[in-house]
């Protein structure tokens, strides 16, 4: 403990089930992205992955991603990991802006992270909002529309006079683009830890050094 009463302690913030889901999800995500690009921007002269292979790969990976998603939702619900997804309503916008200001300005000035990980909240406000949206809105949408494209019989026959697959296809594509943008940002933010690889290390080991101060004595677990 230092004179300010701040203690640092390594705690298990990323349990095994979460790490397994995270890395399998990362693999599926990458393969889905590549095969999705191959299917949508299908070009006989410049295929990223051949159409027939991409189709099978996309379907199989989509299925595994769905299974992983269900695994995450159930495990997150049953474990105490769900606490990290409960937004803090107090000063909600101000906290978001503070984090955004850190990314836009503070990080270049060498300031410390405004919301370091604690036992009760490992995400900063922007991370939390993003993950909440991704896990509980964006992923369900891409999974449902994906299954509609995989099994077109499940899609409505017509919507507004157009083939029922159209809205599903457009939504699937747009959400895919949003997830690709998230993917780029997520991979980049891996590098903003203490060192370039510290974030990857914690996601492999599950341990993270968090600050435990007098005000958060309950965090001494």
């Amino acid at each position, binding site marked *: 403990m230092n004179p300010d009463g701040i203690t640092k302690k390594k705690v298990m913030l990323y349990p095994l089930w979460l790490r397994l889901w995270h890395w399998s999800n990362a693999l599926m995500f990458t393969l889905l992205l590549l095969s999705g690009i191959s299917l949508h921007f299908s070009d006989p002269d410049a295929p990223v992955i051949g159409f027939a292979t991409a189709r099978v790969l996309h379907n199989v990976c989509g299925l595994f991603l769905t299974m992983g998603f269900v695994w995450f939702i159930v495990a997150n619900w049953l474990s105490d990991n769900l606490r990290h997804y409960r937004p803090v309503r107090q000063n909600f916008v101000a906290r978001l802006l503070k984090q955004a200001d850190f*990314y836009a300005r503070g990080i270049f000035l060498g300031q410390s992270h405004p919301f370091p990980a604690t036992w009760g909240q490992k995400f900063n406000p922007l991370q939390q909002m993003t993950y909440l949206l991704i896990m509980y809105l964006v992923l369900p949408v891409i999974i449902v529309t994906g299954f509609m494209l995989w099994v077109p019989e499940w899609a409505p026959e017509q919507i507004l006079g157009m083939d029922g697959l*159209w809205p599903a296809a457009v939504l699937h594509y747009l959400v895919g683009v949003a997830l690709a943008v998230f993917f780029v940002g997520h991979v980049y933010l891996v590098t903003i830890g203490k060192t370039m690889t510290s974030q990857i290390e914690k996601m492999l080991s599950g341990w993270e050094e968090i600050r435990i101060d007098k005000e958060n004595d309950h965090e001494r677990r």
Partner: protein
Amino acid sequence: MDMGRLTSVKMRIPRMRLGGSALVMAMTFAFSFPLMGGEPGVPAEEPQNGTCLRCHGMPTLGYQDPDSGKFINFYVDHEKFSRSDHGRQGCVVCHKGNFTVLPHQPEGGRNHHSCGDCHTGEKLVQRMRLVGIAAQFQKSVHVQRKVKGFDCFSCHNPHESRLENRMRAETDVVRRDNGVCLNCHQEMMAVEEKHQVIPKTGMHLAAVRCLDCHTPRPGSVIHAIEPAQRAERNCVACHSRDSILLTKLYKYRLHESEQRAGFINGVVLSDYYVIGMTRHPLLDALGILGVGGALLGVLIHGAGRWFATRRRLKP
């Protein structure tokens, strides 16, 4: 012009299966009708279509061919005929002979017509592209393999054909066109089983025409039907921006959509979604800009961090 094959092909009445007992009843019923009252050898008054359709408008009119064992159907759907491109023609314009006796004695036997008999004249032949069609037809597997009795009318029913039919919804076009092929090929093979190489076989068979894969590119040679071994097997042939479907199945629809909504909207608002083919240029641009922008953003941010750190660490 070389209309040899077209002029030599003979008309054959479309076939359909009928129950034996229904046939017997129909024939009995048909024979019980008085014909035009003429005596053999005495010229009779030219019959009107209604007279012919009194018998030929009965769906059960036909007989079993003793040679092939197949049921030969003499039924003409009055509704479809009157709406067809030939609907204003009198039956006897094409069918000549003595119809006062039963069975009828048409000139030159039962099969004695070809498209080229009526579709003459340079302009008409040019407009209907009959010369090109005749050349394609010569290359068709049906001609190459000398399929007995295969002619224009094996696929094009003159009593029902209607140019406007191609402007109908694609599902209707597919069902109708594939029905023509399946009329014979369903008896020859288990069609769905034969096409297992195509994923979601049933859906593909209901969504594209046999012709779209079984004819060479581009779609303007749709009459040169190829043998199965040469069928299109490359998914990207259809599932790409330059899809062959745009020159085949969607050819007329695309033209109509373009006229209705302009080129971009015509493509975008097409009624059917085909992955890889139906792409919105604006959505594509949005996707590329979004992901490209994100990549550029993190590159700039990363470079900024690198320079800022270097400057801070400088003694």
